[in-house]
């Protein structure tokens, strides 16, 4: 079924053929399975813009609750030409290059402090970036000769993090946020920026935010210099920090 003629910028969902708009949806409604429930589910799918929806599964997933699988031809599209997303811009340097650059262009160790803040106790991400052990076979910043990396671990309060950063004269602060329930990651992170601004300290540090649901766009929105998501490697972080320090120097 071709719903709309092809257009280079207009992206529609692709199932089996260009333009078929096929998407799959899963949802639960508070209704018991039956002919009426099936019709309700169809209309629910239609409300999302799915044409000719097919309810392929309808199963009671709790007393009075039904789980549905729907397929349908989505009428929606996105104009790609309108979507412009910030991406972290930096050279793809390896550990060796980075170390060289620090040695020759900064001439002293770069100091970073990292923590998983608030009530968040998920340290695996920040450890992956900072600790010797590293991530995906790549050692963390602790292993860099020209980095001085402090990892404060989990459940660190913003105040404590800032105090430590000042105490060790950090160049960059690395914040990890994993728990996203009720947007706690956004709140924690922006609270730190607010705090720093109040104290006139925001510009003193390169601020990095990271976590499984963080991307560069969100990092910027929350007032950080960058945001890093899944798959980040220590060298990406190192490269970014050094590059940003150089930029600031100029």
């Amino acid at each position, binding site marked *: 079924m071709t719903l709309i003629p092809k257009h280079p910028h207009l992206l529609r969902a*692709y*199932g*089996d*053929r*260009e333009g078929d708009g*096929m998407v*799959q949806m*899963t949802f639960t409604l508070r209704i018991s399975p039956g002919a009426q429930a099936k019709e309700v589910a169809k209309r629910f799918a239609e409300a999302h813009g799915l044409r000719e929806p*097919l*309810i*392929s*599964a309808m*199963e009671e997933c709790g007393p009075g609750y039904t789980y549905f*699988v729907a*397929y349908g031809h989505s009428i929606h599209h996105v104009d790609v030409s309108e979507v412009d997303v910030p991406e972290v811009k930096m050279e793809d340097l390896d550990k060796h290059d980075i170390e060289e650059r620090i040695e020759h262009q900064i001439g002293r160790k770069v100091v970073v402090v990292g923590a998983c803040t608030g009530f968040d106790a998920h340290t695996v991400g920040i450890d992956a970036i900072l600790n010797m052990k590293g991530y995906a076979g790549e050692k963390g910043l602790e292993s860099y000769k020209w980095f001085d990396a402090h990892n404060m671990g989990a459940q660190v309060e913003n105040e404590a993090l800032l105090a430590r950063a000042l105490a060790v004269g950090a160049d960059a602060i690395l914040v990890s946020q994993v728990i996203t329930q009720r947007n706690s990651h956004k709140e924690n992170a922006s609270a730190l920026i607010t705090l720093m601004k109040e104290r006139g300290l925001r510009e003193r540090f390169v601020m990095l935010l990271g976590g499984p649901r963080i991307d560069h766009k969100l990092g910027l929105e929350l007032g950080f210099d960058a945001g890093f998501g899944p798959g980040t490697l220590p060298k990406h972080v190192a490269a970014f920090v050094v590059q940003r320090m150089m930029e600031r120097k100029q």
Partner: protein
Amino acid sequence: MAQVPLDMKVVDECRRLAASIADDVQRFIDKHTTVGVERTVARAFGIEGVDDQGIPLVNMLVDRIHAQKLLGRGVAFFLGRELLRGAPNLQDAAERLAYGRSEITGEGPETEAQINAVLEQGVKTALKHMDDARDTREAMKARLGMADNPWKYVIVATGNIYDDAIQAKSAAHGGADVVAVIRATAQSLLDYVPHGATTEGYGGTYATQENFKIVRRALDEASEEFGRYCMQTNYSSGLCMSEIAYMAAVERLDMLLNDSMYGILFRDINMQRTFVDQYFSRRLIARSKIIINTGEDNYLTTADAVDAAHTVLASQFINEAFAHRAGVADENLGLGHAYEINPWLEDSFLLELSQAQLVRQIFPNHPIKWMPPTKFKTGDVFHSHVHDAMFNLVGITTKQSIELLGMFSEAIHTPLLMDRYLSLKSTKYIYTAAKHLGDEIEFKKDGIIETRARVVLNEAVELLTTVQRDGIWDSISRGAFADVKRTLTGGKGLAGVVERERAYVNPILSMLEGGAA
């Protein structure tokens, strides 16, 4: 290593019975030809083209001869005679016969020797065409290398050959080793092969020579890009079984769905027609070293997979016997079976494991084709995905050769691009995570798994005994396979079956049977 106990005496007995069953049919085959066989001969002689109605020249040609009740002499006879009578080449000869004003008659002074002589070059060219394609394929395989077994086999079925090509390449990108373009619904009932590239098909895409070429090109590109030979397959089955086999041979397909009885049971094609057609198609396949996939898996969609497991095994022996008679080597004989037991049955996984292992051991050199759950699939795509995972696990554990990957949307539609991607991803995970499981476990003596294997083998030998006693014709009419009954003169395509005359001429078949270069 996980092995079920095999009573080789019973296995040998099965093979003996199957041989006798096939021999009986082979005597019939050797006395008959069909419109399909003759059209294939014509195609092999390079005769091509369609008229303004889209009717292939080979159909016009053969139908005209058949209308005169002369097909028992073989189309080659008439083509040769036309050459002797001045046609500049075979294509021209065919056109004269098909569209010529004068009626075709059986009489004429031309001797068989003369006919054979004048066709000699045409026969050589025909075979060279097939052999060259085969050699090109084998060279490419050798150069690029093949994936380990089980090969990951996926289907594409957009209906539009150009979309198919995109999806085929995407499949290869996602790790597929074999790509099948599913055929448009009911093409098997057409008594001609459509022509050219096609973009409209229900439930699949028409099998045409041009379509074969388009997908082969996409997969050749994929093979080079991904550095691994990617196989292509289609269907040599239905009323044009042997024509498609020929087209596949010259277009370098790697596999074909090709069964001695599938058309009879599942498409209600006449059994005489099917047996004759399958023989010729397999002669071509054997020459081209194409791997066939038989269709026993289908039995378990109409019959219960626990009760009818032995019918699958019995049929595999029969398919093997037929294939041997057509010169197909064991290493190209992809006997089909399937994971179709009710998944909610206690220990269903054990029963599947048992059957898969049994088939593996009985046919150790055969590229066994293992089919996924379909019948018990529902529209709950999440659960369906898990069901397929268990199937994959049996596949890797019992070391199946070719595995058609299950799709989580099986009960809904032919697979979307992402369905296939996810299926490949899941399969790669299972194959990796359980790579050596089969080598690492053994089955408990006389346990559920061993016992089941014994029972199935014993039931198979019993069934074969009955079929051998009654003959396959009668057995099928009593519903021996797939719970389906078909009669000797029922079904489609019987009108296209013709007794060979004594002076039947088919130098292509002769060469194939002779096995000469």
